[in-house]
């Protein structure tokens, strides 16, 4: 079997080459993954913190329950099914959602799915710290907000940074489910173009390379942040320095 890379220079019938189209598709993949990452980090961190709140007031108890429900809801449903629920089922229940573009729905779907995993990591990170840290903060007269901001979160984030790196890379690869709701991203590009050109091997090789490059870029950026955040002498972040 011979490979024919010229196929990428062919016109797709609409006035652009398959190569141009592939970079557009790459752009969609990165936009979906990037936006979903923001949603995932924001809602995931919030839910992770809520789950570890001290259970001393009625409000905190309810907030923790809400966060528990959130995590269990979004991590117990397969991600593809969630995307379908966002795209087909919710708009049936709330007709106003019919007007929401598929891009927003898939970002929310993917973001909330990943948020449940981020929340669990953060919870683990906070709970892994000696309880004395929290007590020390309280003894200093810190409010709950100050305790989290200045004592718990800085260490917890350094602890969970390596799994967070993997999760970010996973999110990028999971963005391929967006093809199911007609976002023109890389996976859909591959399925469509291999049909049009009958050159599946070349198309899939190129798309694989783009996924690999993107995921590895995420890895490097996260590793850089990890190195920059290092606190000398702190055991958890250690002097490993890599993100592999």
């Amino acid at each position: 079997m011979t490979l024919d890379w010229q196929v990428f220079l062919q016109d797709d019938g609409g006035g652009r080459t398959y190569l141009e189209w592939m970079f557009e598709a790459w752009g969609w993949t990165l936009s979906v993954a990037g936006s979903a990452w923001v949603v995932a980090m924001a809602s995931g961190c919030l839910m992770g913190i809520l789950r570890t709140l001290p259970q001393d007031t009625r409000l905190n108890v309810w907030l923790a329950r809400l966060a528990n429900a959130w995590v269990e809801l979004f991590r117990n449903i397969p991600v593809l099914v969630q995307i379908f629920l966002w795209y087909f089922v919710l708009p049936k229940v709330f007709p106003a959602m019919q007007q929401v573009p598929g891009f927003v729905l898939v970002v929310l779907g993917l973001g909330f799915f990943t948020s449940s995993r981020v929340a669990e990591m953060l919870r683990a990170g906070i709970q892994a710290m000696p309880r004395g840290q929290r007590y020390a903060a309280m003894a200093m007269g810190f409010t709950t907000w100050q305790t989290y901001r200045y004592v718990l979160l800085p260490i917890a984030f350094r602890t969970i940074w390596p799994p967070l790196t993997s999760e970010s890379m996973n999110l990028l690869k999971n963005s391929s489910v967006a093809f199911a709701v007609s976002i023109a991203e890389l996976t859909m590009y591959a399925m469509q173009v291999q049909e049009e050109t009958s050159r599946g091997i070349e198309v899939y090789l190129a798309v694989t390379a783009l996924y690999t490059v993107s995921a590895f870029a995420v890895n490097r950026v996260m590793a850089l942040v990890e190195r920059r955040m290092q606190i000398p002498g702190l055991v958890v972040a250690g002097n490993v320095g890599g993100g592999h």
Partner: protein
Amino acid sequence: MKKQFVTLAVATLLVGTAFAQANDTLAKVKAAGSITMGVRDSSGALSYTLGDGKYVGYHVEICQRIIANVEKAVGKKLEVKYTPVTSQNRIPLVENGTVDIECGSTTNNEARQKQVAFAFTTYVEEVRIAVRANSGITSIAQLNGKNVATTTGTTSVQLLRKNERATGVDFKEVFGKDHADSFLLLESGRADAFVMDGQILAGNIANSKAPADFKQVGEVLNVEPIAIMFRKDDPAFKKLADDTIAGMAKSGELAKLYDKWFVQAIPPKNIKLSMPASDANKDAWKNLNDKPVEAYAKK
């Protein structure tokens, strides 16, 4: 011990020759004692599954006749293995010998003819538009500014794009991941039309909750020859397949088979597609050929 070694060496040699003659399908299936038929899970009435590893359809039945003749040619009974294929893997699987004869819904076009060979065209597909019956849409011109659904990994997408450029009708394409998904887009109102092969539209409409709510409208967007596919550069096998089809066309059996799958009630739900053979179909049976889709466009 020594004897076993010799047997092994001979067997290796035999396998080696089988590989060397990869494009002699008749010799390959004779040596293997089995033939592998590539089938589709849901390609309308052309090739689909009843579950339980059973595959039926118009093209599957034609292939069974071809295989009967292959058995006569090699002079022994062959075990028929069914391998489900997808639009993505069907060509590589035929090329690398996993599948000997593909009986699905493959459009015969020039790009594919460089990689594989096709038997005489047995089915001519017309690409059409399905809409909700109450939408008032009757032609492609009315799709301006509307959402049009089609299925990822089909030639219809490319067709739409070309049509868009040629006519200046500007519509938004939405892609379903499979035909059922595309139909759901139409049903749920996310799309105003579904552009696809006529028989697939007919099948989806017939299977829907309320078939009367949908209809096929407007002009035929494209005509595509659909054919049975096998390896390239294998004249003996192609002749055998073509002769089988020619015999069936001459005896009127092909038309009868068509009627059985596309007009009469078919399993598993006993629904009727009610799609009598088009003139293009009848023409293909009369003037048997293996021309690619590009030759149809020129007419």
